[in-house]
């Protein structure tokens, strides 16, 4: 079953992602709200996996069949992540551990833990959350980052450390979001006929997390130096600090709970017209959209850079003004929407269909 609220949230994540990538990669301007895109996207991975799992169980698929497909899909996304790094971010960044490798790893992990009791899943999430700063401190995170980007040596230890703790989207603490999505969707969508989804309590819990994150952020200057420098790190996405993760998880929970309450459970929106149609298209092709918008704005940058000198990345973050980058991002969104609609109309599959074709 497709839920309109999930498509809407996915579309919000896509809009933020496209906008921020154009601003960052073309103009070097970092924009704070952009930090919501990746948490929202990875949270929805967990939600979608729960829904897919329920549909497979309803079809009577065996546990081993479900495992096989999940592992295939996880490996596909993991491999796609590497291919994407090589082709889009160029071979030098093969092991930068971007979001696709995280999603692939998340699916593999969710496959292992999907039958565990919810308290155990919650414990895994808390441990992942707490381990993040500890592992970063142990690994000496700043030494792997040069001028704001991840720059490891091509050694096994650096590659594994990048995957676990110090890459762009390392397993710790980012695995928390798919896990939280899976747990939340289990509470919301399992046996919907018997129990009312806990939308209000989830939204309140999310709000408490937001308040906690903001308070921690404000009180950081009063905390003892070891805590302020090692445990709390300020509001940053790279590295994903405790405050940032807490705040984003809270925001994502609030958006998801209220979206489900106000959109999915509202018969007025059942027909899915207007903006819901747009959200439906972007939601259906979210993976394709993720790959496509990178290709659209990075390849021209690399080609132009290569044609102008030895280093293809010489114009990265300084190609154009932010006031040109923003309209370009909207133009990209509009063009991609037109393309995706055409694909939908002509029943052409995107990367999602390739994945299903190869893995299911």
């Amino acid at each position, binding site marked *: 079953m497709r839920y309109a609220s999930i498509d809407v949230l996915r579309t919000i994540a896509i809009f933020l992602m496209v906008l921020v990538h154009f601003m960052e990669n073309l103009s070097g301007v970092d924009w704070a709200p952009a930090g919501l895109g990746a948490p929202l996207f990875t949270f929805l991975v967990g939600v979608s996996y729960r829904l897919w799992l329920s549909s497979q169980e309803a079809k009577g698929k065996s546990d081993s069949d479900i495992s096989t497909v999940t592992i295939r899909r996880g490996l596909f996304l993991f491999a796609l992540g590497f291919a994407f790094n090589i082709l889009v971010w160029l071979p030098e960044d093969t092991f930068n551990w971007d979001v696709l490798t995280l999603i692939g790893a998340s699916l593999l992990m969710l496959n292992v833990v999907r*039958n565990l*009791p919810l308290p*155990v899943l919650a*414990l895994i999430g808390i441990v992942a959350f707490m*381990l993040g700063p500890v*592992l970063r401190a*142990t*690994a000496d995170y700043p030494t792997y980052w040069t001028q704001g980007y991840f720059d490891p040596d091509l*050694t096994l230890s650096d590659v594994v450390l990048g995957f*676990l703790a110090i890459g762009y989207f390392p397993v710790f603490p980012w695995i928390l979001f798919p896990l939280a999505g899976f747990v939340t969707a289990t509470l919301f969508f399992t046996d919907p006929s018997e129990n009312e989804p806990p939308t209000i309590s989830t939204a309140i819990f999310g709000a408490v997390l937001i308040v906690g994150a903001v308070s921690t952020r404000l009180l950081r200057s009063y905390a003892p130096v070891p805590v302020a420098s090692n445990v709390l790190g300020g509001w940053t996405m790279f590295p994903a600090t405790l405050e940032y993760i807490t705040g984003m998880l809270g925001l994502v929970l609030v958006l998801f709970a209220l979206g489900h309450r106000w959109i999915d459970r509202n018969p007025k929106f059942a027909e899915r017209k207007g903006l819901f149609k747009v959200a439906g298209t972007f939601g259906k092709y979210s993976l394709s959209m993720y790959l496509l918008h990178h290709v659209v704005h990075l390849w021209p940058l690399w080609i132009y850079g290569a044609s102008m000198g030895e280093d293809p990345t010489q114009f990265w973050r300084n190609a154009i003004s932010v006031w040109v980058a923003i309209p370009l991002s909207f133009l990209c969104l509009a063009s991609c929407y037109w393309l995706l609609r055409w694909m939908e109309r002509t029943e052409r599959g995107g990367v999602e269909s390739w994945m299903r074709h190869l893995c299911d």
Partner: protein
Amino acid sequence: MRLSEHNQIASSSEVEHVAFVTEAAAGQTVLIEFPEPIKRRAVLVRSSPASSHPQPVPANELLILSVPAPVEEDPNLLAWVRDWVGAATPDNDHKSQMIAFQGAQIFWAPGCIALVTHPDRRAAVRKALIEFAYYENELRAIERDLGFLWPDLEAHAPLAFEFDEKSVRKRQQLSKRFQQILAIRARLARITPHVLCPHLHPPTLASQVGERLRERTRLTHRLEFISGQLEVFERVYDLCGQRASDFMLARTGHTLEWVIIILLLTQTILVGVELMSTLGK
């Protein structure tokens, strides 16, 4: 039969509304006090002269029409009484049952009884009829309740074999059903001795009327069928309860094991990362 004759019969007859309650309200006449385990009393709610066009029987009430029997059997009178019972029980799918015994004619439909007898015998027969009506009504209610529970039983039957994480949320529902089944079994157990009681000796008109009606409505057989059905329900929900209990016990153990595994993994990751970061430098 002419309209005036209808009115004449109606005016000489009496309709009593009887309710089965736990405690009689002040001023209510208690007609019968059932034995202790049943804890019910049949009370007279109101009585009035019969009308030719009776209102349908209210739920949870028994309607008793008492008509004084004429000296000679009158087919028109019996037809009128049968029609009266039919009109009082419009939802009843079956025709009313008729018993003629030692000059007493009785028409019965669920919730409604018409008694044509000599006024001297009326009180004794009425008592037997009220008793029968209560037990039959209880049995019918149990049959209806069980009928509603069959789809749930079919849905829950797989859980009697295997209980898993997804089923945990159904525990409350299973427990509720089990309690419902036990309650039904208790209701059945309370009326069973009275339904299966042996014939009274020496027989009286009242006892024979009760026995005859029990036979006509197959109370004994229905009770056996219900008992058989209840066994199925009890077996399934008993097994479900055992499976759920076993699963929850094992789950608690597994949760603790997983907590230990997670802590060990955490420690391994910490050591691994420390080792790798040292090696890297």
